[in-house]
């Protein structure tokens, strides 16, 4: 019987790895749909090769930095990880690695949301290496790898802080250094909508992410005992639904229109928000956490826009702002039955856990967020100097990164048409 359970555990986490990896498919559609046609091929394609880089780096050093034996700050063994061994009664090293590497790739992809439509391809290459080696693994070690925050009792079930906030902080550093896209702001300070080219892609992207999240959260149980993963999936589903509904109503109440991209970000916000708490809270609390996440994301997007921080995919709001809320919500709503009573952490403020757990959660957010932001900022600043700027030239940005970075458009016929129109107009102007 026990052998069967071990097998089932391995199988479930293996399926989880596949689901989490498929989230990259969601990001491809989400990002491509949320940006303009001339950058679509680039945005989609870069996700594949940065996944390649991220995988290699994570295998070489990333996994070791997280789970290797070391000190409270970083792990220092298990480099070039993986073999065919199957320890008794647990996950095989390969299954565990496969699951972990996918989380690192998701975090990396979130970070690149902040680079969209203006960063050089070479910047993606270098930053993918550095992020996968020195940023994500350090935070993950602190919280999941037995580092100093784990010792404090930080609770992050599937990675609100580790995956989402870390990625978002790198994205924030990038957006600040890269500056807004051409045409985003007017001289008088007002902003323009640079509408994404395909809402259907964006929607399908969100749905794929949503499905992938069942692996992200559900398989973070690392096993199938008691079918607890089903409870985790239930909470995940409730929060996502609540987030979508809340964001749509908030947008409607604010502007009179039920904006589609905002609704979609609401669903993602619900998912990000519940990530830290999905295995800790009651279903009704999952709904509340999702609702608040959905409302927050709308105001957060507006705030960043006002601050002149141009965030094309809303990565900062969805993964950053809401990632913080998700982590804190754990310190409010964690049930004793799912924490203290089973020796799996502390109950939240509303269940007699006092301020302590909330404080630990806040400390985790501040420390992890600050680390991810500061290191990303320094790395990007150095890259900026060394590489002669992170951003493509103005001309390249206008022609689109599909052409400037890759030599062909994602939508060749369409872009050829646009070009022809431009040339005709220019010729007419010259000769009339």
């Amino acid at each position, binding site marked *: 019987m026990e052998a069967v359970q071990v097998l089932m555990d391995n199988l479930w986490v293996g399926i989880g790895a596949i689901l989490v990896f498929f989230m990259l498919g969601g990001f491809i559609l989400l990002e491509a749909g949320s940006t303009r046609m001339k950058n679509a091929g680039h945005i989609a394609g870069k996700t594949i090769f940065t996944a390649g880089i991220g995988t290699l780096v994570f295998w070489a050093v990333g996994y070791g930095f997280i789970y290797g034996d070391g000190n409270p700050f970083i792990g220092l063994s298990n480099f070039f990880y993986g073999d065919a061994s199957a320890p008794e009664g647990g996950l095989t090293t390969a299954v565990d690695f496969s699951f972990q590497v996918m989380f690192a790739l998701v975090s990396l992809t979130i970070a690149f949301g902040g680079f969209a439509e203006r960063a050089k391809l070479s910047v993606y290459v270098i930053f993918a290496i550095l992020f996968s080696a020195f940023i994500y693994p350090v935070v993950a070690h602190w919280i999941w790898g037995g580092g100093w925050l784990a010792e404090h009792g930080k609770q992050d079930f599937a990675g609100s802080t580790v995956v989402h906030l870390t990625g978002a902080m790198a994205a924030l550093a990038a957006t600040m250094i890269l500056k807004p896209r051409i045409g985003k702001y007017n001289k008088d300070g*007002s*902003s*323009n*909508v640079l509408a994404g080219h395909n809402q259907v892609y964006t929607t399908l992207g969100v749905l794929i992410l949503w499905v992938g999240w069942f692996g992200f959260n559900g398989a973070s149980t690392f096993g199938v005992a008691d079918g607890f993963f089903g409870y985790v999936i239930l909470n995940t589903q409730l929060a996502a639904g609540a987030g979508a509904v809340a964001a749509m109503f908030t947008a409607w109440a604010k*502007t*009179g229109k039920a904006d589609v991209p905002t609704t979609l970000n609401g669903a993602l916000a619900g998912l990000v928000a519940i990530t830290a708490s999905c295995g800790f809270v009651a279903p009704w609390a999952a709904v509340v956490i999702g609702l608040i996440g959905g409302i927050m994301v709308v105001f957060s997007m507006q705030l960043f826009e006002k601050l002149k921080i141009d965030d094309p995919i809303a990565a900062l709001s969805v993964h950053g702002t809401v990632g913080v809320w998700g982590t804190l919500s754990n310190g409010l709503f964690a049930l004793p039955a799912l924490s203290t009573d089973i020796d799996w952490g502390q109950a939240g403020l509303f269940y007699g856990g006092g301020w302590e757990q909330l404080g630990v959660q806040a400390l985790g957010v501040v420390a992890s967020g600050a680390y991810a932001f500061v290191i990303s900022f320094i790395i990007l600043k150095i890259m900026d100097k060394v590489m002669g700027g992170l951003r493509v030239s103005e001309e390249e940005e206008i022609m689109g990164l599909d052409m400037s970075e890759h030599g062909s458009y994602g939508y060749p016929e369409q872009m050829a048409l646009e070009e022809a129109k431009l040339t005709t107009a220019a010729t007419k102007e010259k000769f009339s």
Partner: protein
Amino acid sequence: METYESIKKWKDAHISSYLLSNVSLNEFHDQVMLKVLHVAMGKIEWSKPPCEFIWFITGSGGRFEQGLISDQDHGIVYEISNEENDQYFKVLGEELSYGMDCVGYPYCNGNIMSSNPIWCKSLEQWRTQIIHWMENESWESIRYLQIFYDARVLYGNTNYIQQLKSIILEYQLEHPSLLSRFVANVKHIKSVIGPMGQILVEQHGVYQGCINLKYAAFLPYVNSIRLLSIKEGVYKTSTLERIEQLKKKVRYKDLLQYSFENFSTLITYRMSLFHSKNYDDTHYLNIKKLSKEQRKQLKRILKDGKKLHDSVVELTFLKS
């Protein structure tokens, strides 16, 4: 001798002194356009028009609500169709559109111009066309009818326009369903008051924080007052004059209680925007620049406009 260029120069030099009131500004526009007509008539081969005709303007000009700059909306009705007359007014219509453009009334996107054969016809042809429009009841023809209903004679001494409008009135009395078609045509209005009771402003772009006066504020009044005027056979074209006439009927007294005052205030707000060179600019009012009192007043006017619009829609639908 006057030319389009000299008229434009004169217009540009003098328009600023007519910005004090809506009436003086619109009278000035009338004057300019009449000058264009005379130059246009002088430019074509015929020594004088071969028959009686009237030249009308419609749209905001027809309603006597033209701003600083607006595109041209106009048409011609002439006495009798024959080869010579048709030819003359075709040439005059084209010349007029060209001249208006030269003087600073850009071509109309909707092609409501005397150069378009649809808007340049003999009285008899017009009569046929209007009946056809009413029988056809397509979205476009209904829209044409509403545009025509705002027509105001700028040149000519005959009552052609009145004759044509009376056809609409008679037909409408016999076929009440027509009114429902008119309503359907203007039923949609931009929502301006949010679910939380706030004024909805532009979220993005250079007019961030502004409301679009034309769509958000003027149109609900203009359209609902026009609907009532069609229903009641009021031939006046300016919204304010229409309101005055309609108010004489007891059944509209409550409904239109504040309409005159509200609409006058809106016009005043728009006049305050007339310093810009851009046509679009004159539609956008930045509510942050208003005082608290003014914002409150504007909100009330917007709410009243929506209420008026909804009541008129209901009223005209019920009766049909």
